[in-house]
């Protein structure tokens, strides 16, 4: 099992597309957008809060897109016949799916770590290195639902359809998470819906750390709930795909 996990992780780290998507893009967007937004701040404290919010939002964006799209990548492996190849080895199929989910979720780690380092350099105050580590941990665990829903999409759709579907789903999740527009700037009805999404809770958990708030049990319950739903979907999709191909 560890050998397979290692094999998968090494492959991901060599995928240039994934590195651009999860690290380069959020970093560039953060660096490009933060000056104009912090300039509009009314006072230095407000500027700091906004900068911290932006940093978490772009880290969340990188983690979300990265974990989700690497999950969708299983579609290509399926089309190539790699999953069939694995199914005639003693490696049990559920272990393959679990390893994939772990490997995909770990894509969040470098994204969040890199944004934290850049954030600190730009003046975001963490209040201790352990909080930076906590942020990475919280955002890694929080991105598990995205890896799982990505796998579900990847097991159901062929690569040609997985690409556009992936864009649609990840964009909706990022939007609901308040990554493009802060949630409290949305209409009230939309806000009440968005509060139930895993991406909003995911982003909020990160913001809570920067604001020295305790982690919300409700947020984690919602994330865990979505993780279960998406895990069931991924398992179902896997069984369906194994039956047909």
């Amino acid at each position, binding site marked *: 099992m560890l*050998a397979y996990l290692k094999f998968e992780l090494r492959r991901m780290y060599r995928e240039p597309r994934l590195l651009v998507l999860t690290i380069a893009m959020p970093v560039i967007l953060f660096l490009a957008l933060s000056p104009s937004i912090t300039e509009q701040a009314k006072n230095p404290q407000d500027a700091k809060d906004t900068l911290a919010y932006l940093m978490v939002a772009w880290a969340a964006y990188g983690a979300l897109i990265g974990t989700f799209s690497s999950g969708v990548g299983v579609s290509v492996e399926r089309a190539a*016949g*790699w999953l*069939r190849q694995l*199914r*005639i*080895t*003693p490696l049990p199929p559920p272990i393959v799916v679990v390893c994939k989910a772990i490997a995909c979720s770990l894509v969040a780690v470098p994204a969040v770590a890199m944004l934290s380092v850049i954030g600190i350099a730009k003046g975001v105050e963490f209040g201790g290195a352990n909080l930076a580590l906590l942020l990475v941990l919280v955002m890694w665990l929080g991105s598990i639902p995205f890896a799982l829903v990505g796998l579900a999409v990847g097991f159901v759709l062929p690569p040609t359809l997985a690409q556009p579907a992936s864009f649609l789903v990840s964009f909706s999740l990022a939007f609901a998470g308040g990554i493009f527009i802060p949630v409290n700037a949305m209409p009230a009805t939309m806000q009440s819906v968005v509060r139930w999404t895993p991406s909003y809770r995911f982003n909020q958990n990160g913001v809570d750390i920067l604001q020295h708030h305790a982690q919300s049990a409700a947020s984690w319950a919602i994330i865990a709930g979505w993780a279960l739903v998406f895990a069931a979907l991924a398992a179902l999709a896997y069984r369906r795909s194994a039956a047909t191909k």
Partner: protein
Amino acid sequence: MTQAAVRLTDAVRLTGVTKTFGSVRAVDGLDLSIASGETVALLGPNGAGKSTTINMMLGLLAPAAGRIEVFGGSPQRAVSDGRIGAMLQDAGFVPNATVREMVDLARAVYARPLPAEEILRVAGLTDIAGRRLDKLSGGQSQRARFAFALAGNPNLLVLDEPTSAMDVASRQAFWAAMRAYAAGGKTILFATHYLEEADDFADRVIVVAGGRIVADGTGAQIKKVVGGRTVSFGLAGTGGADLWLPGVSAVDIRGDRAFLRSDDSDATVRALITSGRPFADLEIAGAGLEEAFLALTGKEA
């Protein structure tokens, strides 16, 4: 004890196995047993049901009816015990990993793998061990699949058209490796549509067509049935009498030309010449395999 010993000798046993896809019967009531240590070729044209049969033996497809046993248990059991290694036609590799990493992975998932260097050497991959899997040529990638199948040192190797995309040199190296593996007492089953390949490398050739077994025997026996020649010549106005020369199994006259189907074209031609009858434009052609399969299936019906 004796019963257990008897069970152990059969590597694969199929009883009344049927598989349908919609209205198509891909495999139609197949009965087959392969003893441990045998090297068996599954010979048949495309669409004969070879791949479907293999996929069922590996537990990738469930039969619609019938029973499949591999080493006395279910195919899934044999796979999870690491007793089967297989090279599938439609199985491929993923990018961003090297040949050596793929071999290491295969070794890690089997309980009793072969040494990595031996796998690379046998599959002819030593020189390209550091190459990425997505950068391999067709033949190299076929050898990489072979390495993956071989890595776990399985008791039963199942190969679905293993030499497609290989050049002549790779083909020879592949079969040499296969012979060495079989010599260690392993059971090998391979699907092919080349009669020569089946005859050269298998102890036993099973011919399938239309999802059924149409012939089962040694390469020489099968060759006699499906590998006949057609001897044809212009009759030079002598008519169609006395054409049942030695070896001839069928006579056909079209216009002024005779087409003799022969199991032993050498004897037929020798007799033709010594008979002293005039003839023109003598030709000897190998019967097409497709044609031979049709003849076999026709005979069966």
